[in-house]
């Protein structure tokens, strides 16, 4: 692919990359920087073989830039504190509100229809997903994005964020519970 073609194709990916970076960094300026670096690396690099989609390839570059940014942040305690205390997001007792005292659902998960996958083709649904992701506590959103979009292994995430596996499972559980509930309330319950 010629350089001119690639720069034309990269621009539309910019907003997607920004969205992903913002959710993980919760820092507008830093997210802009990281995306800029990703696009520059993509332009100067020769790694794109056309075997994966352009977006998947860019996500792979972005992953490294975000991990670098997080490492750098952790070395600057004043900046790191803006992220909030990760321990505060690990408290499992929070989920008691979703269950009764015997551990039964309260309320039960709702029915999402026969083919919830149809929603994935709708622009409005993706907007609702974005809103739900933004509503997650900062560290929870970051960990969930690292796992599900960046596809980092759990031990890599634990190492980068210096948390143990148990805490990671709790955070991911929290993210899934909150997202499930948010999608149900803001999409599936309204589109029966």
């Amino acid at each position, binding site marked *: 692919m010629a350089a001119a073609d690639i720069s034309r194709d990269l621009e539309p990916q910019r907003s997607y990359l920004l969205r992903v970076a913002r959710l993980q960094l919760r820092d507008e300026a830093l997210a802009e920087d990281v995306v800029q670096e990703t696009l520059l690396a993509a332009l100067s690099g020769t790694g794109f073989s056309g075997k994966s989609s352009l977006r998947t390839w860019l996500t792979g570059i972005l992953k490294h830039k975000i991990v670098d940014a997080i490492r750098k942040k952790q070395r600057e305690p004043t900046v790191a504190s803006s992220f909030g205390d990760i321990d505060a997001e690990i408290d499992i007792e929070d989920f008691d509100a979703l269950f009764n005292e015997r*551990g039964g659902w309260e309320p039960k998960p709702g029915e999402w229809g026969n083919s919830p996958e149809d929603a994935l083709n709708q622009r409005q649904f993706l907007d609702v997903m974005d809103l739900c992701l933004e509503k997650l506590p900062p560290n929870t959103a970051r960990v969930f994005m690292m796992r*599900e979009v960046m596809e980092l292994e759990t031990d890599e995430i634990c190492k980068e964020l210096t948390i143990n596996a148990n805490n990671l499972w709790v955070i991911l559980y929290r993210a*899934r519970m909150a*997202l499930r509930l948010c999608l149900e309330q803001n999409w599936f319950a309204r589109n029966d």
Partner: protein
Amino acid sequence: MTETRDPAPPARRRMTWKRVLGHIISCKDASRLVSRREEGPLSAWQRLALRLHLSVCEACSRFERQIAFLRTAMQRYRQ
């Protein structure tokens, strides 16, 4: 959760059996295992307990499908 008691013996036996399986682990524990499984294999005991629970619990089966949907949705996010 309120359940109406059916006096007919066969129905009651089914209900009791279902209740026993459903209470090996609670829905709360089952939901944690469903999420935990996304990160790697469960122990043999966890797999068994979850399987038995899911076989009788409609709410948790629903939850399991919704978590699978979430994964698909997040993969779609990057395509």
